[in-house]
């Protein structure tokens, strides 16, 4: 009995040389980069005691402090909602202009993407510092910072969603004689809406957390109180702030999950 003829593989394919080589290379790079940057993993473990000490001090939350932080926490949520909404709304046209399946003009697409890369490169802390200088201490600076930060992040997430859509309905709308804008409205938006909502809420969640940090720079919200409690080594207050922020994040996460189920 003869063995049926099958295509032959070269030894490179047979022993998965490429896969192994790439994995090996990545491992070498990882080790080399930790050497070069001088990361000392041992220090993490030897100083772990201090970390535990902090945790212990935070383990008695000063519950009466909750009343004080309700107002700034609400302000933080408002800042996050406003900033995310403005950023996401601005992101939609840019995401469309960056999607390779909608815009075939490479130059235009490249230009938009370059602009988005630039926006994403600016760290949010730098933005906050600039806008606090421009608008003064307060939540306006925070909202503008969050809007720009969300814009950069959301537009990338959005255009990646757009690039995965089914192109069939676009073809159909084109054959009907629809204009480009109508095609986007009728065939693209329905396909991406639920993912948009989901990414919007994800960004909102990130912004709630980010705005706690922005408060450090005077951009308003709960962050101001977080900074104060840390400066005063009042870790029982810090614990309350962290728990309250966690509660907000959990609520947003719950809403997000619910909406995804409903909209899908």
């Amino acid at each position, binding site marked *: 009995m003869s063995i049926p003829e099958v295509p032959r593989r070269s030894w490179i394919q047979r022993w998965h040389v490429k896969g192994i080589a790439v994995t090996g290379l990545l491992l070498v790079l990882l080790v080399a980069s930790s050497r070069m940057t001088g990361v000392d993993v041992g220090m993490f473990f030897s100083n772990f005691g201090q970390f535990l000490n902090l945790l212990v001090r935070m383990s008695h939350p000063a519950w009466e402090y909750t009343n004080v932080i309700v107002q700034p926490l609400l302000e933080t949520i408002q800042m996050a909602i406003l900033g995310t909404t403005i950023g996401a709304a601005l992101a939609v046209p840019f995401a469309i202009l960056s999607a390779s399946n909608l815009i075939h003009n490479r130059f235009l697409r490249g230009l938009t993407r370059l602009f988005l890369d630039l926006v994403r490169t600016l760290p949010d802390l730098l933005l906050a510092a600039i806008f606090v200088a421009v608008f003064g201490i307060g939540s306006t600076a925070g909202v503008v910072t969050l809007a720009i930060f969300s814009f950069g992040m959301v537009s990338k997430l959005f255009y990646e969603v757009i690039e995965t859509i*089914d192109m*069939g*309905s676009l*073809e*159909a*709308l*084109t*054959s*009907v*004689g*629809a*204009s480009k*804008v*109508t095609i986007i*409205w*009728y*065939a693209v938006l*329905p*396909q991406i*809406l639920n993912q948009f909502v989901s990414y919007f809420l994800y960004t909102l969640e990130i912004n709630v957390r980010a705005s706690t940090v922005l408060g450090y720079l005077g951009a308003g919200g709960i962050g101001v109180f977080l900074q104060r409690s840390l400066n005063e080594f009042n870790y029982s207050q810090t614990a309350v702030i962290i728990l309250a922020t966690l509660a907000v994040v959990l609520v947003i996460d719950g809403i997000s999950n619910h909406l995804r189920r409903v909209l899908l």
Partner: protein
Amino acid sequence: MEEAPIISFKHVNKIYSNGTVGLKDINFEIPQGQFLVVVGLSGAGKSTLLRTINRMHEITSGEIKIDGEPIQTYKGQALRLLRRKIGMIFQGFNLVNRSSVERNVLSGRVSYYPTWKTLCGLFTQADREMAVRSLQRVNLADKLYTRADELSGGQQQRVAIARTLMQEPKIILADEPVASLDPLTTKAVMDTLQRLNREDNITVIVNLHSVPLARQYADRIIGLQAGQLVYDRPISEVTEADLNDIYVTEAVQA
């Protein structure tokens, strides 16, 4: 005197940017109201041929006339108006799955409105009634508010036909409209196309793989092989042996 053809191909060539020959010196005419079936193997150029008629594909050289007018120079609004009078039906139905049947059907009407009105969904009452009538013609009026992806394949294809009807087309191009359907729904879809052809005098051009279907519905059959027109007969002169040749000769060559 014979009536002028609604579509005419003169020395049409299509070469893809990677050098593949899509169409090679295609010459033929289609009279108004004909039910034309295009047969040929996958990759013979059937889809390409169909899509050159509504300029979804551009040709490399030659001339295509519709209603006596060369279409190659059309741009913008003129191109959209050309596409408006040519309905197209696809193998994959190409509905917007997450939208309602009504919205899908109405989307066939958008080229009659300025863009801003389509964005606001400002369709006239008359057009909304027309959408219902179009669905009645494909026996799906009860699905008006159903989401498109809740329908079966055959139903989705009929919704796609209703969408096309909203264009009030003079020509319908159908690219393998039944390739992903079972025999029963195949009959429903092909019968619908035949009815539109006979009742509304719409010129219908269908790409098919199935020789029996082609013989059953066509007024005329043309055959493509490697981008060339190798067969063109009215149905009265078509024999089974001819059609088998279109498939077999190429299979032997390959």
